[in-house]
C-alpha cells in the first residue's frame, strides 16, 4: 500500500498548485523509498528514466522554424486568410481541423498536427480571427477559451482517430499484451472496434464546437448584454 504514496503526493501537489517538476520529483523519490529502494538507487533510476525519455522533448526542435515564421507574420497571415472567408466561424474552423486531424490520424498520419507545429502558429490564430472578424476585439477570457478549444481539437482528433490505423503504437500494445496472455487477435479486429468511438467523438465534439459558436454569438453578437 505504501507504494501508492507517490500517487497521493502527485494528486495533492497538482491540486495545491505547486510546481509540477517539484511534485513529480518528490513523488518519484517517495515511491522508490516506499518500494524498498535506497536513496542513491532511486535517484539513479529516476536519472536513467529521464535520460531514456529524452525522445519526448524532441518536439522542441520545431521552435526555431515556428519562431522565425512568427517573426515574419505567420500568425497574422493565418488571420488575414480567415478574415476573407465570410462563412468562417470559430466553431467551423475548429470542426474542419478536427475532421482533418481525425481523418489523417486514422490513416496513420499522426505527424500531420501537433501543438507547436500547427495549433500555435495556424489553428489558434485562425479560430481567433474568425471570431474577431465577426465580433471585433475579443475579451481576454473569450480569447483564451478559443485557444484552449484549438488545443483540445488537436488532442481529440488524434486520440480518437489513430486507433483506426492498424499499425499504431496503441493497437500494437493491445495486441502484444493479449498475445503474452495467450490470446491472439488480428490488428484489424482491434482497429475496427475503434470506429464506433471515433464516430461518437466526432459527433460529440463537433456538436460542442457548434454550441461554442452559438455561445460566442450570444455573448458577443449584436444585441448581446455587455
Amino acid at each position: 500500500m505504501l507504494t501508492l504514496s507517490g500517487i497521493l503526493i502527485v494528486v495533492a501537489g497538482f491540486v495545491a498548485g505547486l510546481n509540477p517538476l517539484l511534485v513529480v520529483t518528490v513523488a518519484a523519490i517517495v515511491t522508490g523509498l516506499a518500494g524498498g529502494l535506497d536513496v542513491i538507487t532511486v535517484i539513479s533510476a529516476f536519472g536513467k528514466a529521464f535520460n531514456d525519455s529524452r525522445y519526448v522533448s524532441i518536439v522542441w526542435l520545431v521552435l526555431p522554424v515556428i519562431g522565425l515564421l512568427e517573426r515574419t507574420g505567420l500568425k497574422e497571415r493565418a488571420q488575414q486568410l480567415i478574415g476573407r472567408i465570410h462563412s468562417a466561424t470559430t466553431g467551423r474552423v475548429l470542426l474542419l481541423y478536427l475532421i482533418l486531424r481525425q481523418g489523417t490520424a486514422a490513416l496513420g498520419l499522426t505527424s500531420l498536427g501537433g501543438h507547436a507545429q500547427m495549433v500555435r502558429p495556424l489553428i489558434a490564430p485562425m479560430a481567433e480571427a474568425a471570431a474577431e472578424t465577426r465580433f471585433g476585439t475579443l475579451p481576454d477570457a473569450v480569447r483564451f477559451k478559443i485557444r484552449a478549444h484549438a488545443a483540445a481539437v488537436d488532442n481529440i482528433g488524434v486520440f480518437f482517430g489513430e486507433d483506426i490505423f492498424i499499425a499504431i503504437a496503441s493497437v500494437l500494445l493491445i495486441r502484444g499484451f493479449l498475445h503474452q496472455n495467450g490470446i491472439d487477435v488480428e490488428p484489424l479486429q482491434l482497429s475496427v472496434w475503434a470506429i464506433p468511438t471515433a464516430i461518437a467523438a466526432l459527433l460529440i465534439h463537433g456538436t460542442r464546437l457548434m454550441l461554442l459558436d452559438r455561445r460566442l454569438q450570444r455573448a458577443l453578437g449584436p444585441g448581446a448584454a455587455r
Partner: protein
Amino acid sequence: MITLDAVYVLAGLLFLAIAGFSLVDRTNPKRLKNAAFWGLLAVSFLGGSALGDLGNGILVLALVVLAGFGGGLGRGAGDLPPAEVREASARRWGNRLFIPALAIPVVALLGTLVLKTVKFGDRPLVDPAQVTLISLALGVVVALVMAMAMLRPPMTAPVQQARRLLDTVGWAAVLPQMLAALGAVFALAGVGKVVGQLAGDAIPADSRFFVVMAYTVGMALFTMIMGNGFAAFPVMTAGIGLPLIVTRFGGDPAIMGSLGMLSGFCGTLMTPMAANFNIVPAALLELPDRNGVIKVQVPTGLLLLAVNTVLMYLLVFPR
C-alpha cells in the same frame, strides 16, 4: 546507421545555443538561471548517456531546483517586431509563409514512409524503430533551410526566436519527459501491481455491467494518474479485463482491448499528468490557467467514457 543519438545532438546544440542567448539576454531578470537550466538540458542531450545513471539523476535534481525554487525561471522580452510590421510582412509574403510551416509535417510524413525502406548494403540508413522522430528532425532542418533562404533574416534569428518561444513555455518544456521518468519509477516500485490487485478485489464480480464499468472507468482513472493509457492498459486488463470480462463472462478480447484503450484516452483528456497534451499547449498558447485545455476537454472526455462503457457492455459479450 542514423539513430536517435543524431537527433539528440541536434536538440542539444539548440538548447546550448538557447542557453547562450539567455545568458546575454539583459531583458530577462533571471537570465543566469535560465542559462543554467537550458545549459543543463543541453548537457543531458549531448552527453546524457555518458553521465551514468546517478549523474543523470543529479542533473535532474539540479533542473528541478532551478525551476522549482526562487520563483522559477524568468522570461526575456520578445524580440518580436511590432504587430503592424508583422502584418505588413504577412501581406508581402502572402501564403508563401505557409510553405516552410507545412514542410515540417510533409517531410516528416514522407520520411516516415520512405526512409524505412532505404538501405546501405544490408544495413538500414536510419534506425527503423525511430524513423518517425528522425523524420520529424529532418522536416525541421528542411523547413529551416527553406525559411532562411526565403526570408533572409539575420543568422541569429532562428535561435533568438526559439529562445523567445521556449521562454514562454518555461519549465513545462521538460515536464512531459519528467512524467515519463516518474512512470518508469512507478513501474519499478510495483505501483501497477498494487492498483491492479486493489481494483480486482474491490468490484462486485457478479454483474456484467458493473464489471465493464469498473474496467472502463478504472482505465480512465488509472490513465489520469499515470498520464498515459499505455501504462494503465496492462494493469487494468490484467486486474479486471482478462479475469472477469474475458474468462468469467466470455467477453471478446479484441472488443474489450480496443474500447478499453479508448477509455484510457478519455482519461488522458482530463489529467495534468498528460503534460505534453494538456499542460504544454496551455503554456505554448500563453493561457493564464495551466488547466485551461483540460477544462475544455472534460465534457467530451466524460461523454466519450460513457459511450465507451455502453458500447462495451452491448458489444463485448456473446449473444
